[in-house]
């Protein structure tokens, strides 16, 4: 028995398969090299949207996948991030790189403010409450003259490409790399989170709050922590998106569709798994972009019908998402059975 214990103790903490490490390294190198292969503007845009949505879904994954709280109003934090950078840039000429952390902090602050009363609710009550909070932000910003009310904000264009103003008019390559860096950094932050003491405790809260309480875990506090982290991951995507399209309004950045799409992406890829949002975004965003191209406008909502169909199939046949097609002994710690 002693030997078995010694063997168990000698195991590495994380039995991540070497294939996964090679895959991650290869993917990162490939993604950094891609623009050198002459990607045209559309493909750069496609990748930018995939990176952005993967980060947004990763944010939602923290609150829903790790701590088990289904938020339907996460678009609010995206909007706060967008308005924080645009407003301070337009009004005071403050670089988005400086106002972005402010947007992150404001999002975190609102997450605490919303989280304290809301996270006392559970299950669908919490989901409905967050849905209404998300809509409330949209309504408030539609009527708030200081931030342009329903017309929104137009970010003045710089004459030339500017890193400090986060504006690049000659090519999307710079945007590509900025979104890529955020995508990679977020992946590693969430990956580390999932393997930290906090990650363990959040999963305990998700799986059985009653049992978690018996292990000295203050369930309410941990839900709030997850909500704040989640909001703070979401906000910079709003900031970057605002500088990418240079025009924001409440209907665009506080739209309920943002909250729904991050849910769809995560569920499709695999909720509670760091790979889920990446897989989900890599499939759903191209569908959205291609349907927009071939069907015009916003895709004639056909993309939403396709999303719905895919989601139904996933929920029936693969409730753990597409990540469940990957053998568990590659991603999980069952190698040493």
């Amino acid at each position, binding site marked *: *028995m002693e030997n*078995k*214990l010694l063997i*168990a*103790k000698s195991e590495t*903490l994380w039995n991540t398969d070497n294939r996964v490490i090679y895959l991650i390294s290869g993917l990162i190198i490939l993604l950094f090299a891609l623009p050198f292969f002459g990607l045209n503007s559309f493909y750069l845009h496609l990748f930018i949207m995939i990176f952005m949505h993967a980060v947004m879904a990763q944010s939602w994954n923290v609150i829903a996948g790790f701590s088990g709280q289904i938020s339907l109003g996460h678009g609010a934090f995206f909007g706060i991030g967008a308005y924080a950078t645009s407003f301070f840039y337009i009004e005071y000429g403050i670089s988005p790189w400086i106002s972005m952390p402010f947007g992150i902090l404001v999002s975190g602050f609102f997450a605490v403010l919303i989280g304290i009363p809301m996270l006392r609710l559970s299950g669908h009550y919490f989901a409905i409450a967050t849905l209404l909070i998300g809509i409330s932000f949209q309504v408030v910003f539609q009527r708030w003259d200081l931030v342009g009310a329903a017309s929104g904000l137009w970010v003045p264009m710089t004459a030339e490409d500017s890193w400090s103003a986060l504006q690049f008019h000659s090519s999307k390559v710079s945007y590509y790399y900025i979104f890529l860096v955020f995508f990679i950094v977020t992946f590693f932050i969430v990956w580390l989170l999932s*393997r*930290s*003491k906090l990650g*363990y*405790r959040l*999963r*305990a809260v998700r*799986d*059985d709050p*009653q*049992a*978690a*309480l*018996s*292990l*000295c*875990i*203050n*369930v309410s506090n941990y839900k709030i922590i997850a909500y704040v982290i989640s909001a703070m991951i979401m906000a910079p995507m709003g900031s970057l998106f605002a500088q990418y399209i240079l025009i924001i309004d409440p209907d665009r950045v506080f739209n309920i569709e943002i909250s729904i799409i991050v849910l769809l992406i995560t569920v499709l890829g695999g909720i*509670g798994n760091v790979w889920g949002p990446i897989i989900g975004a890599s499939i759903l965003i191209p569908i959205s972009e291609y349907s927009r191209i071939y069907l015009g406008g916003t895709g004639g909502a056909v993309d939403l019908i396709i999303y719905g169909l895919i989601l139904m199939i996933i929920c029936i046949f693969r409730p753990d998402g597409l990540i469940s097609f990957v053998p568990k002994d590659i991603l*999980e*710690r*069952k*190698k*040493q*059975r």
Partner: protein
Amino acid sequence: MKILSVKNLSRSFGGIKANDNISFEVEEGTILGVIGPNGAGKSTLFDLITGYTKADNGKVEYFNKNIFGLSPDKISNLGVGRTFQKLKPFADQTLLENVMIGSFVKEKNIKKARDKALEIIDFVDLIEKRHHFAKELSTGQRKRLEMARAMAIEPKLLLMDEVTGGVDQKTIPGLVELIKKLKDSGVTIITIEHNINIIMEISDNVLALDQGKSIAYGSPKEIQQNKQVINSYLGTFDAA
């Protein structure tokens, strides 16, 4: 030294008195067995002591400190562990991860927390199952998982709700040995049990409940001979 002192603890649900004026004390390093028919209020008593249910009135002192009204996480943080009658493993996590969540309470370093969890898993004799998901374990193994998880917070007092309930006869002796090992390691135990032979074998004292009331408290021998206990719970008891 008294580790737990319960005084006049009461809780009603609607018109039903689930616990009615219950008082008892537990000495450090002993095992208190709690017996009683279904609906006697045994699990409610656990919920009241550990803060899962708020008592209507009464007093709960742990090492002479009043813990009445504290939340379950604060009570567990003081060193009161528990298992549940209806098992509550973190089903989608491995056995090792389940126990690590407990060992993080005292150990901040991940590797040290992992090693401590492994030692406890070894103690409950499940080391070979450490990478199995909780949902893949048998009922007996999940009972051990819950004990291991509760032990990981290094409790001074452990409340165990029907450890041998719902497991096959072959598994029971191992679980009983485990309870004895736990006691030998210095943990004070309060255990709810339906198997009267087990209660008589392992307990230093026994508390008998019936319809929410405490009907007897004493050594196993005294309980065995208590007429009220015999009438309401034991019937004709044969210790053999």
